[in-house]
């Protein structure tokens, strides 16, 4: 036990009536996993009418701490105090009953049910005899009360991520939560949806509710929150009033040294003049539901160049990435890989030709969560020496390979045979990125690669992309963060409603013009 800051030392909120007790006090919370200290001696206070940010690197223990607070895990030490009384939550229901509700990053709604049905599911106040009209009316009342716009009759499976999240929040609030915990809620939202979320959170705060929000986006934290606590390697480093700190200070506290994201990544060499590794010609593609998502897209990648793809989420980005990596066959139009027309979509052919892919949803697509880190690390190279061959496979070599990958990107592995789902999301992302960069000798398609990464990891990820570019790889970077696109791209492509609005050189692109194109105006109008 050393001199690090205890909750008594942390500043009280400025505008709080003197004597107001905290809704939640954590005192010396510890949580251990085999070989990992997830939380140690964490003490903090959360006050009513306050939005409290929790900040920390990937794997710092933020999610674990919140899972302890909501009864998903039992603490190995320390005390949880709610309204002045020590409590133990055997399960999340108990936490809800005490007024603490959590919205997880992966939603837990029944996708075949309507919004109204989901809201009433497993709720003690649900009337015994149900009529669709009545619960929809109820849902509408709740929606107005908490200022969260929803469509009660819509089936949840058809909703966007932002809409589903609103349903989750409403579900928690309707059960009388006074403390709302959100784990990286903005990672899946478009900027407009983020704005709507923040309005609702402020409204909840102004009504006396308390919020704990986990986010890696410092500008969001500065704009939204009242206080901020920083975790590093499972320990609390400090709690501050947001108004009296700065992003740079927070980053330094979080990582242990100052980190700034570069605004440009000058290339180390000339752009090589080589034929395009991948060309799309008038490509039209449908999603699995048969809806047209890409229309008449013509695009030619250039070796040694980063092509940024800007666009509001849900305007054809996943389908574009899938067509570029052989996961989806175009309906019309053609794809040429190294000048040869591709007849059939086959990801194996693309991978062999040197096309790497960091997909949007890594757990669903790029990893087998229940298998070991070793097995996941070799997913792209298992058939090559020294790991395997035509028939063989060596788990020993796979383990060594995984360790190599982890060392390269600075991920501490408790063991290469642990299931990869035990790693924090950011560490999974780093491993996937390194794995893909290794095979991407011609093309690398990276969809939202900074999602869920902390700022240090984002800086490292950008360096990796720039290095791939310098090595002559054609990089496609999809991102919702225009700063990221401007910092890295040589050209910027804008997608809107499945159409490629324009492909502009970086030097001719500015925020207004890209913004106008993103909202569907043509290039002539935008110029």
């Amino acid at each position, binding site marked *: 036990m050393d001199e690090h800051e205890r909750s008594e030392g942390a500043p009280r909120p400025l505008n709080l009536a003197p004597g107001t007790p905290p809704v939640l006090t954590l005192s010396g919370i510890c949580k251990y996993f*085999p070989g990992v200290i997830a939380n140690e001696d964490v003490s903090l206070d959360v006050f009513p009418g306050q939005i409290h940010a929790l900040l920390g690197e990937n794997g710092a223990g933020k999610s674990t701490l919140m899972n302890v607070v909501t009864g998903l895990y039992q603490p190995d030490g320390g005390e949880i105090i709610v309204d002045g009384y020590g409590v133990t939550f055997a399960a999340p229901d108990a936490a809800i009953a005490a007024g603490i509700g959590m919205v997880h990053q992966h939603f837990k709604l029944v996708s075949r049910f309507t919004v109204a049905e989901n809201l009433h599911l497993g709720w003690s106040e649900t009337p015994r005899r149900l009529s669709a009209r009545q619960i929809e009316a109820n849902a509408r009342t709740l929606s107005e009360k908490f200022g969260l716009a929803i469509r009660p009759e819509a089936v949840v499976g058809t909703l966007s991520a932002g809409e589903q999240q609103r349903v989750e929040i409403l579900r928690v609030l309707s059960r009388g939560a006074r403390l709302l915990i959100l784990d990286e809620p903005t990672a899946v939202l478009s900027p407009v949806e983020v704005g709507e979320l923040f309005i609702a959170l402020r409204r909840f705060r102004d009504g006396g509710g308390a919020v704990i929000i986990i986010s890696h986006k410092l500008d969001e934290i500065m704009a939204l929150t009242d206080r901020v606590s920083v975790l590093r390697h499972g320990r609390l480093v400090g709690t501050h009033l947001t108004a009296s700190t700065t992003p740079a200070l927070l980053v330094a506290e979080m990582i242990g040294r100052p980190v700034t994201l570069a605004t440009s990544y000058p290339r180390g060499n000339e752009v090589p003049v080589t034929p395009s590794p991948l060309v799309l010609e008038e490509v039209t593609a449908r999603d699995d539901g048969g809806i047209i998502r890409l229309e008449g897209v013509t695009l030619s990648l250039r070796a040694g160049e980063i092509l940024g793809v800007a666009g509001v989420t849900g305007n054809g980005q996943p389908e574009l990435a899938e067509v570029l990596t052989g*996961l989806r066959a175009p309906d019309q139009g053609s794809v040429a890989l190294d000048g040869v027309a591709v007849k059939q979509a086959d990801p194996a052919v693309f*991978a062999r030709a040197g096309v790497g892919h960091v997909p949007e949803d890594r757990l669903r697509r790029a990893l087998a969560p229940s298998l070991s880190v070793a097995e996941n690390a070799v997913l792209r190279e298992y058939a090559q020496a020294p790991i395997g061959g035509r028939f063989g496979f060596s788990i020993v070599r796979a383990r060594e390979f995984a360790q190599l990958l982890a060392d390269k990107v600075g991920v501490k592995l408790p063991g290469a045979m642990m299931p990869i789902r035990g790693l924090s999301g950011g560490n999974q992302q780093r491993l996937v990125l390194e794995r893909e960069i290794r095979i991407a000798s011609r093309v690398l398609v990276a969809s939202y690669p900074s999602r869920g990464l902390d700022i240090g990891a984002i800086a490292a990820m950008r360096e990796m992309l720039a290095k791939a570019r310098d090595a002559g790889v054609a990089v496609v970077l999809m991102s919702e963060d225009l700063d990221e696109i401007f910092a890295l791209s040589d050209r910027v492509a804008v997608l809107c409603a499945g159409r490629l609005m324009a492909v502009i050189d970086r030097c001719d692109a500015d925020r207004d013009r890209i913004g106008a194109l993103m909202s569907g105006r043509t290039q002539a109008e935008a110029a």
Partner: protein
Amino acid sequence: MSSSRTRLTVVPTQRILVGRGLALLAALLIVAVTLAAMGRSPITLFGLVMHSTVGSRFGLEDLALFMTPLMLTGAAVWVGIRVNLWNIGAEGQFYAGATAATAVGLFTGLPPALAIPAMIVAGMAAGMAWIFVPAVARAWLGVSEIVTTLLLNFVASLLVYYLATGPWADRVTGALASTERLHVILPDIWGVVHWGFPLAVFTVVVLGVLLARSRFGYETAIAGANPEAARYAGISVAPRVLAVLLLSGGLAGLAGMVEVAGTVHRLQGGIANNYGYLGIVVALLARGSCLSLIPAALLMAFILDTGIVLQTTQISASAVLAITGLLVLAIAVGDELAAYARVKKTS
């Protein structure tokens, strides 16, 4: 500090072993208490069971005979579960394998040196054939293999009854309950224990090594754990689903061949003796490890043998089922408890 226990996501093998040992003891205790309450002496019965199983030459031979088919049906189910496929039809594939082996053994007139390999091939091929349609339906159409493989068990069972009492029935004895004795059988190596036993052990070991060390083993593990990730990595899932299910059917068919050619020597109704279903239990007991199929089959064989011994002392057959259920439950509880570990504070 109230609670210092945590649930491990990966449980070390020693913990599982200790947990299961304690579970077995607990189950034995419950059985003993129940027997005592029924007015029987648990000590006497225990002595009897021990003598008739591990305590005598005949007992050991019996155990080995029970273990042989259980290792193979256990392996059949295990290769499926490993990749999230549930072959509930090992029973049916067992019948199919036994039938095909019988056909070779009765009607070809081959010399033993050729007939035995031919029976093995025929038995495995028949097992594969029996699972072929469910496997294709699962691989390309996504039809649940659980239902289709299960239903075919009843077809296979009735077919064997029909053959053994009808067209293939033994006209010599006139009993009309089974075929005549096979012309070629697996030679014995130790008492009544035949070559099927080392063959089964060998099969399990080879299977374990191959799946752990082969590209096929790796690719099927990925395809089973996350089909979407497999596709992303360029691994086509459907052919591998088919291959795994065919392998599963082949192993169950081999079990049928070994049983008819080594132990029973005739095809008769009910020859599968629930070995296909018990294979599911054996596979679940073995968890992730192929080699563990051997001790799991031993345990199951011990339970079956115990049942027979107890029946000879007028304890009802349902008591045996109850004991089996109790043991499986105790082991499941033991595994769960083994996952909870006390965590020492490290800093």
